[in-house]
């Protein structure tokens, strides 16, 4: 599947397109299908999100999981500061990210 991500303009937080707006939870990311480029162009023009881009992901029981480790780290937080992760000290993070 294809999903869209970027960083929230005022905070820099990692955000994902959920079909209607931008969420901080990758689990809620929506399939953008063939409309990714148009979505990115529109959202960039509306100036709410920074540097949005489309990535590959696979749908899992826990929702979309980005194909590349970089986006999985973006989704969760630094692997060396689990206390600062989006879900702090989540025992499931390790196997999900790596």
């Amino acid at each position, binding site marked *: 599947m294809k999903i869209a991500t970027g*960083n929230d*303009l*005022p*905070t*820099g*937080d*990692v955000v994902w397109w959920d079909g209607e707006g931008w969420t901080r939870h990758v689990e809620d990311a929506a399939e953008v299908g063939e409309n990714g480029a148009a979505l990115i162009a529109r959202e*960039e023009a*509306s*100036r709410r999100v*920074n*540097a949005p881009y489309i990535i590959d992901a696979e749908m899992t029981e826990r929702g979309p999981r980005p*194909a*590349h*480790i*970089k986006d999985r*780290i*973006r989704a969760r*937080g*630094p*692997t*060396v*500061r689990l206390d*600062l992760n989006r879900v702090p000290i989540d025992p499931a993070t390790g196997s999900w990210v790596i």
Partner: protein
Amino acid sequence: MYRYDQFDQSIVDARVEDFRDQVARRLSGAMSEDQFKPLRLMNGLYLQLHAYMLRIAVPYGTLNSRQVRMLAHIARKYDRGYGHFTTRQNLQFNWIELKDAPDILAELATVEMHTIQTSGNCIRNTTSDQYAGAAADEITDPRPWAELLRQWSSFHPEFTYLPRKFKVAIIASDEDRAAMRLHDIGVQIVRNEAGALGFKVFVGGGIGRTPMIAPLIREFLPAEHFLSYLEACLRVYNRYGRRDNIYKARIKILVHEIGAEEYARQVEEEWAHVKTLGLDPPMSEFDRIAAYFTPPAWEEGLSDDIDLSDPEFKAWVDQNIVAHKQPGYAIATISLKPVGGIPGDASAEQMEVMASLAERYSFDELRVTHAQNITLPHVKKADLYAVWQALKEAGLATANLDLISDIIACPGLDYCSLANARSIPLAQKIAERFAPLDRQRDLGELKLKISGCINACGHHHAGHIGILGVDRKGTENYQLLLGGSGAEDASLGRITGPGFDEDGVVDAIERTLDKYRAVREPGERFLDTYRRVGFEPFKEAIYG
């Protein structure tokens, strides 16, 4: 230490207000990211993986306690309680919100700090020897020259849009503690046979995609011509640097392509003209700056004896203390590399402990080292035990300076948007594998440096052992390099062969060091043995 005059302060204050206005326009949607990005970068504000990152300039690595307390305050109020000291002697905050950035710059300006020259294709913040003004082996304090350079280069209109970024390092001893020859321009302060002060000038060094050691361009530059000569060096680069290709745009490529001799000839030709323009300030202006760096009021007649009856303290003294030019004093380095920790990170509380110790025991001075540690430059030997006890309580007394666990590691894929692989977890695994201090000390001086991508912020080419993270079909992979050095015996590491996964590279390092222990001669560091026996025995040990 240098103090701002009214010009410095008004320049910095004006920059804060400019940026406040720019951020407001970006947040209101009046400016696009394409328009805003160059402006935020000129203020050290990057967008990284998880948030904005703010890089704060620490000119030539020198800080006072008030400034460090301000960094702690910013860490707490605007970030997540910690900061990261970098190989450029700067500090980065990883979790900054755009809307807060102008307020942070305003707070920094109250303690004479800013983020200017930490990004963009300008002359970046000048780096120097962390032991400047204290080292027993220096011929003078290099920082007044670094400060002169800062004042000359800040907002220099001709050099604000160079072909690429430009980094200068300046030292004043034969021992190079600032990786001087890996900079675009490296300056070593020397005396000629007549005893006059001047500079050896090296141009065209750098790491990154195409690592190079800067060749000597001028054997002796009289001190009074410092700025006009550098101006000529920059002008030749600005004219002929490869603006057409970002990978070839650094000065090292120009110097390499036309040859050091031809580059030097062109600089001399340009200099003959520049010298007539009156760019060199009168020496009285230099003296004005130098007065800020007058040595502190060291006490005379102090004893050099240290009570080493506490073995843990003795280990720290043996490893983290170096000779000071003043009898009875020592230079103490605070390791930011606890085993299992994140190299270069310090919490707000740790920053405050270091600030208090500097204020109480080191004439209010701290230095950031390019190896991501902090130095207290002027500690009475009689006070070392008290300093060590306070550090120990704050988790800052790791006795590993220049040992295998004193690893330089860039932020890597845990934070950096350009990364291919993570650096920090690998540094932690290596430090844990070699954790026992007697094992580390048996291995001796060993500079291990890790970068998460080819940009080489972790100086991997200059590591006795270097590691470069690469992306192999979407998974992290690590190349191993041997034989680099960023010191006065500068050399570039050689890639051993096919890369490894994270555990594989730790095993490969262990095999490398087993080989070293088997073939070393008395007194040889790993690097010395490597240079004596060559690459092949180690390659054989690694790959079998």
